[in-house]
């Protein structure tokens, strides 16, 4: 089963192609790191996969052939956008209530015990939470939806090192407990090295590397970070030439 499958997928905003001719299959059961420099099209690809954007060319399906953005897809995919947008003026508890009432699937017990475990008070407003707490609240809401696929767009970008660590521990605990698939994007590969079991490198709207982490490491004989850097350099010089 593939959690995300793109065939010649393209997205154009006005005149510029944010993503072009992207064909890839992401198999289930992995923590997938989607890596690439800023502006490589990571967010565009994820937006297309979760149904926030519609493709200009090609097609994208999720969870074994379900069209992206369809009710069935929305039901089974939880997405946390960059900077974890939540309603700032609502208390954390009410934010849970909003999410509960916007979804058919919801595990309230899980959400509440998770927040309790993290020490996030339900009566504190979302706007008053720290960056790390806010990211954890967004992750809590995503996990309470009991998704088959969890999509995180730059989840670590706004967090300090300790919060990054805690966040990734939370994600890995879930993967171990639920066996769900995770796709997360980042422009820094170093912190994903230990957690990612599948790597996709995106550069100027095109896929340059795609494969299982252990196989890539075995084939290249270097670390994931070196593979990513080498791939980015290659495409950069390709553009220059």
């Amino acid at each position: 089963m593939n959690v995300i499958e793109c065939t010649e997928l393209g997205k154009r905003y006005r005149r510029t192609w944010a993503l072009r001719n992207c064909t890839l299959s992401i198999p289930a059961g992995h923590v997938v790191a989607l890596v690439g420099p800023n502006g490589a099209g990571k967010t565009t690809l994820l937006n297309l996969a979760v149904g926030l954007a519609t493709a200009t060319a090609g097609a994208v399906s999720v969870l074994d052939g379900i069209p992206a953005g369809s009710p069935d897809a929305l039901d089974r995919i939880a997405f946390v956008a960059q900077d974890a947008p939540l309603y700032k003026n609502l208390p954390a508890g009410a934010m849970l209530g909003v999410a509960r009432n916007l979804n058919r699937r919801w595990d309230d017990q899980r959400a509440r015990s998770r927040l309790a475990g993290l020490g996030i008070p339900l009566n504190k407003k979302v706007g008053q939470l720290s960056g790390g707490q806010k990211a954890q609240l967004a992750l809590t809401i995503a996990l309470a939806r009991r998704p088959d696929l969890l999509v995180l767009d730059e989840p670590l970008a706004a967090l300090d090192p300790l919060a990054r660590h805690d966040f990734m521990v939370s994600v890995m605990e879930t993967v171990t407990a639920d066996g769900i698939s995770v796709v997360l994007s980042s422009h820094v590969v170093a912190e994903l090295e230990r957690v990612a079991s599948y790597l996709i490198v995106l550069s100027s709207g095109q896929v340059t590397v795609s494969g299982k982490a252990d196989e890539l490491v075995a084939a290249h004989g270097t670390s994931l970070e070196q593979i990513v850097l080498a791939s980015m350099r290659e495409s950069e010089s390709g553009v220059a030439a």
Partner: protein
Amino acid sequence: MTAITTTTRAPGAARRRPVPWSRLAWVTYRQHRPALIGAAVFLGLISVYLLIMGLQMNHAYAQVASCKPAGSEACLHLKNSFNRTYWGGGGSAMEAGGAQTVSSLMLTVPVLLGAFLGAPLLAREFETGTFRFAWTQGCGRVRWAVSKLALLAVTVAGVTWAFTELFTWYYHGFLADGQVSRLLPLAFGLLGVAFAAWTLAAFALAVFFGALIRRTVPAMAATLATWTVLAIGTAVAIRQHYQAPLKTTGNPPNDAWVLGSYATGPHGQLSVNQLYQQAPASVLNSHDPNAFTNWLAQHHYTLWTSYEPASRFWHFQLIEGGWLLALSVLLLVAAVWMVRRRAA
């Protein structure tokens, strides 16, 4: 993957039951509670003022209405004093706050209320990026948008409709014997279904501009401008054409909405201005009050007054309410369509 074996998603299973509207209604209520409380306080303060003034006014008017014999010197004096005190328009502070001023100010309530509640509805989601959260939840963005817009539109229209009852009671003294025509722009927009319809239209405009511009404050400004042009244009140029006006050579009824005068003569139709230009200065400046009338008769002119009779009030209300409702629905549907189409 374990999840694929879950029974609810068996292949070919019956269509999923969508998220119930009642739960989406709770989300709308919870998210917009502060704005709704703000609007309620705003209307509440106006209500208290109308209630206090209305009690005084209706008490004073009861004396005018029960004065016998009607038409006597004493009764006319009482009536004039009632008008002076409560209609306003004079120099004193009390008169400045009379019913005339109150109804003028009240005419702006629909746009204030509509812009305040409608503009942030979608624009705030775009400004803060929370649409990325809302549109990726299980209920889907169209259902999300429809539940919000429908619930708030019905609430806004319902509350303002109820509010009209209070205003009508407050205004009773001036409407009762036709001192103020119900069709007069100052009154028409605050009575019947017009007040609610104009508020709904302001709300729909604000939601529409919020979806289009994606910024709260510019959406409010656009709503204010568009609504004002629409409301003033309707009052001065459109409303009188809902039904062809009646005309009379005598005096129109006391409670009619007088639109204007013109003259017909041997050379066709003339406006009052043209008539004044033709009449010699000796006639216009004459001390004889009948000089102008006599001059008109000599030159075979007939003076007409066109007016809308007060009996057409509900007919006009339903026409105006009808097209405003249609416009509002159209704007809200367009907003939902934009939400559906909008790519992140």
